[in-house]
C-alpha cells in the first residue's frame, strides 16, 4: 500500500514538474527519464536473466536510428504515424535487432556471453561510419518533430510529457513482464540454466526472447532520445553508452525492480549538475561508482530498502550505526574532493603558465576561499579530514562488528 502511494506520488511529481521547473531542468529530467528506461530495460537482461551485456548501446542506438528514419519519412510524407507514437518504431527495430543479435549471443553464457555482446557492438560501431545512408556519417541524421493535434512539439514540455508517458508505460510493462509466467521463468534462467532445459524449456529460445524484449525496451529508450533531440549520430554506438548503462544499473542495484531507475536518475542528474561545477566530474562519478560497489554492493535501492526495513523492525542499533557513519563519511568525501580539486587547479595548464611567468605560486580559490599551495596547512587540512573521517568510520565499524554475527566461510561453496 505504501509502495503504491510512493509510486503515485512520484508519477504526480513527474507530471507536475514542468509547472514549477524551468525549461532547462525539464530537459534534464527528460534525458534522465530516458536513461531510467534504458537502465530498466538493460536490467531485464542483466539482473533478471543474469546475462550481462556489454554492448547494449547497440539496441538503444538501433531504436534511435529507426525513429529518426521514421521521423524523416513522416516529414517527407512517406509514412503516416502520429508523432507521439514514433518511439514505437524504435521498439520494433530494437526487438528485431535484439532477436538477431540475441540468437548468436545467447549461444554462450557467462563471460562468453558478455564478450559476444561486446564484439557485436564494437563491430556495429566500426561499420556504422561506412554506412552513411543509414547512420548519417559523422554529422549524423536530423529531422524535425511534426505537430500532432494540439501538441506542436516545438515546446520542451510537450516532449517531456510524451517521454513521461512512454517511460511510465514501459516501466509498467516491464513490471507486468516480471509478473507473467515467462517472467518467472526468466529468473530461473539466471539461477540454473541446466535445470531450465531439463524441465522441458528450450533454453536458447527462452534466452533469445528475453534478449529481444530487453532490446525492444532499450530501442524505445533510444527512440525517445532521438525523438527528444531530433537527431542522432553514430557515436551513440560507442562503448561509452554501453558502459554508462552498466554503471547506472549497478549503482542503483540490479536486484531491486526500481534499482536501475534510481541509479540512472541519480547519475544523470549528477552528470548534469556536477559537470557545471567542476571539470573533474567524471572522476567523481567514477569514485562514486567504485565507492558504491565497495560499500553497498547491491546498490542504492537496496540500501534504501534496508534502511526502511530497519525502521520497520525498530533496529535502532543498525540505524544508529548508519547515522554514526554518515558524518565521518562526508568528512572523508569533503577531504578527497578538496584534495583533488586543489591538485587539479595546480596541475592546470593555465596555472602552470602563470607559475612559469611569475615564478610564484599564486593562491587558488576553492569554495570561496583562497588556498595557498605552498602552505602546509592547505594540504594538511584535507588530509587530516580524510584521516580523521576514516579513523572514525573504522572505529564505528569495529565497535559494531564485535556485536554482529560472523559469516560462514563455506557458505555457498557447496559442490557444483
Amino acid at each position: 500500500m505504501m509502495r503504491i502511494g510512493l509510486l503515485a506520488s512520484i508519477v504526480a511529481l513527474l507530471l507536475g514538474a514542468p509547472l514549477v521547473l524551468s525549461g532547462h531542468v525539464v530537459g534534464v529530467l527528460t534525458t534522465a527519464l530516458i536513461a531510467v528506461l534504458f537502465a530498466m530495460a538493460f536490467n531485464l537482461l542483466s539482473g533478471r536473466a543474469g546475462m550481462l551485456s556489454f554492448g547494449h548501446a547497440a539496441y538503444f542506438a538501433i531504436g534511435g536510428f529507426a525513429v529518426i528514419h521514421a521521423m524523416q519519412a513522416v516529414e517527407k510524407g512517406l509514412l503516416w504515424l502520429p508523432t507521439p507514437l514514433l518511439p514505437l518504431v524504435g521498439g520494433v527495430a530494437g526487438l528485431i535487432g535484439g532477436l538477431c543479435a540475441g540468437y548468436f549471443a545467447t549461444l554462450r553464457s557467462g563471460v562468453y556471453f558478455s564478450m559476444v555482446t561486446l564484439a557485436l557492438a564494437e563491430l556495429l560501431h566500426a561499420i556504422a561510419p561506412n554506412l552513411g545512408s543509414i547512420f548519417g556519417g559523422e554529422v549524423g541524421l536530423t529531422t524535425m518533430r511534426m505537430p500532432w493535434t494540439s501538441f506542436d512539439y516545438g515546446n520542451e514540455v510537450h516532449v517531456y510529457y510524451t517521454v513521461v508517458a512512454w517511460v511510465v508505460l514501459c516501466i509498467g510493462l516491464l513490471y507486468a513482464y516480471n509478473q507473467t509466467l515467462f517472467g518467472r521463468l526468466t529468473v530461473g534462467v539466471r539461477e540454473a540454466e541446466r535445470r531450465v532445459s531439463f524441465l522441458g524449456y528450450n533454453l536458447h529460445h527462452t534466452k533469445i526472447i528475453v534478449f529481444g524484449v530487453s532490446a525492444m525496451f532499450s530501442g524505445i529508450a533510444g527512440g525517445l532520445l532521438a525523438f527528444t533531440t531530433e537527431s542522432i549520430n553514430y557515436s551513440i554506438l560507442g562503448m561509452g553508452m554501453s558502459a554508462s548503462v552498466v554503471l547506472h544499473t549497478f549503482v542503483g542495484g540490479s536486484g531491486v525492480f526500481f534499482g536501475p531507475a534510481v541509479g540512472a536518475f541519480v547519475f544523470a542528474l549528477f552528470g548534469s549538475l556536477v559537470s557545471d561545477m567542476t571539470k573533474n566530474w567524471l572522476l567523481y562519478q567514477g569514485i562514486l561508482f567504485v565507492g558504491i560497489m565497495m560499500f553497498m554492493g547491491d546498490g542504492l535501492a537496496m540500501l534504501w530498502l534496508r534502511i526502511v526495513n530497519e525502521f520497520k523492525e525498530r533496529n535502532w542499533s543498525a540505524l544508529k550505526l548508519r547515522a554514526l557513519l554518515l558524518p565521518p563519511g562526508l568528512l572523508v568525501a569533503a577531504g578527497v574532493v578538496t584534495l583533488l580539486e586543489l591538485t587539479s587547479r595546480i596541475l592546470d595548464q593555465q596555472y602552470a603558465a602563470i607559475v612559469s611567468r611569475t615564478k610564484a605560486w599564486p593562491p587558488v580559490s576553492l569554495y570561496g576561499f583562497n588556498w595557498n599551495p605552498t602552505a602546509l596547512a592547505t594540504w594538511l587540512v584535507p588530509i587530516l579530514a580524510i584521516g580523521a573521517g576514516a579513523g572514525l568510520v573504522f572505529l564505528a565499524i569495529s565497535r559494531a562488528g564485535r556485536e554482529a554475527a560472523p559469516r560462514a566461510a563455506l557458505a555457498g561453496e557447496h559442490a557444483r
Partner: protein
Amino acid sequence: EPLKIAVIEAFSGPNAQTAIPFVEGVRYAIGKLNKEGGFNGEPIVVTEYDSLNQTAGAAEKLKAAIADGARIIIQSTNSAITAQISEDVRKYNLRNKGKEILFMMEGSEAAEFTAEKCQFWAFKTASNPFIRIKALVSAMKDTGKLGSKVYSINQNYSYGVDHEKAQALYAKEAGAQIVGSTLHDTAKIQDFSPYVAQIKASGADTILSGNWGNDIILFMRALGDAGLKVNVGNTSLDTTGALSAMGPSALGAVLVKLYNLEAGGKAGETFAEDFKAVIGHYPYNEEPTTAFGTLLLGEALKKVSQPGGKVDIKAVALALENVSYDSPAGRWSFRKEDHQLLLPVAVSEVSKEARYKVDGTDMGFKLLKIVSPEDSAVPVDPKCKMDRPS
C-alpha cells in the same frame, strides 16, 4: 539589454584537451571586445557550458544556454556536436521567430556545414579539407616539397574521406600522381608500421594525410622508426603534446593551418604578446582560430551596436555576411552564399629554426607560405541551399 554568448564545449572527456585552446581564443577575443566597449554599451556576457562531449549532452546544454538568455552560441570541437547544435539552432529559430539565435562554428572542419547542412543562422569560421589541402599542396609545390608520387592516408569516416578526395584532386592538379591511398579505423590503430611498410612498398615520395590525434602521432613515429625519408603534409601536427610525442621524426613535416605565429611581422608579434599577456601562453595551437573568428563576429556586432538598443540577431547575422577582420596574416570574411569563411591559410614546416618552440621541445612551426584567401578558396558546394529570412 546585454548580449549573452554561450560557449558549449567538451570541457571533460576525451576531447577536453582539444577544446581548451579554442575556448581560450574566445576568452581572449571577448575580453578584447569588451575592452573596446562591448555591445550596446554593455559588456558582452559569456557563459561556458560543458557539452560532456555527447550530442545529447550538447543539446541539453544548448537548451540551458537558451534558457539563460544566450543569443549567440560558439562551439568548436567535435563535428558531431556541431551538427547537433546547428540543427537545434535551425529548428529553434523556425519555432521561435523573432527570438532567433546565432551559431558560430569556430573550428569544425567538416565540409558538410557549408554544403548540405548550410543554413542562414550558422557561420563557419573554419576551413575544410578542400581548402586546407588546396593550400597545402600548392605551398608544398612552391617550396619543392611535393614529390611526384603521393600516398594518401586518412581516417575512415566522412572527414577522412573528404581529405582523401581533396588530396586526390589537388595532387593531380599539381601534376603529382597518387600511387596509393588508405583509409584506416579512426583512433584505434596502435601500431602504424604496417602502413609504413605499405607506403614504402608503393614507392611514394610524398605523404598527404588528414589524420589527427594519436593517429598522426603514431604514424609519424612509425615513419621515423622505419627511417623512411619522404615529404609529409598534414593538418594536425600541432595538437598539444604531439610534437614532443613524435620527437625528431616530425622534423621536416609540413603543416597547414589557419594561422601561424610567425605570420604578419610586427602585427603578428603584437598579437602573440598580447595574447600571452592575457591568457598566459602563446597562441600556437587553435587559439587564433577562435580569437579571429570571434573578433570577426565583433566587427559585425560593432556594426549593429547602439547604446541601449535591443539585441537583434538577424541584424547581426546580416552584418556578418558583409564585414571582415584583418588578422596579422590577412583578411577574414564570410562568403554570403554558404557562410564559409574566406581566409588566408598558413603553411609551415616542423623545424628547429622556428621562432616559437612548442611543447617544451626545441622544435616549432616555421612559416613557409601564406596562401591568400583568394588562392585558398574553393567553390561553393552546389548542395548548399540556404533559406534566407525575408
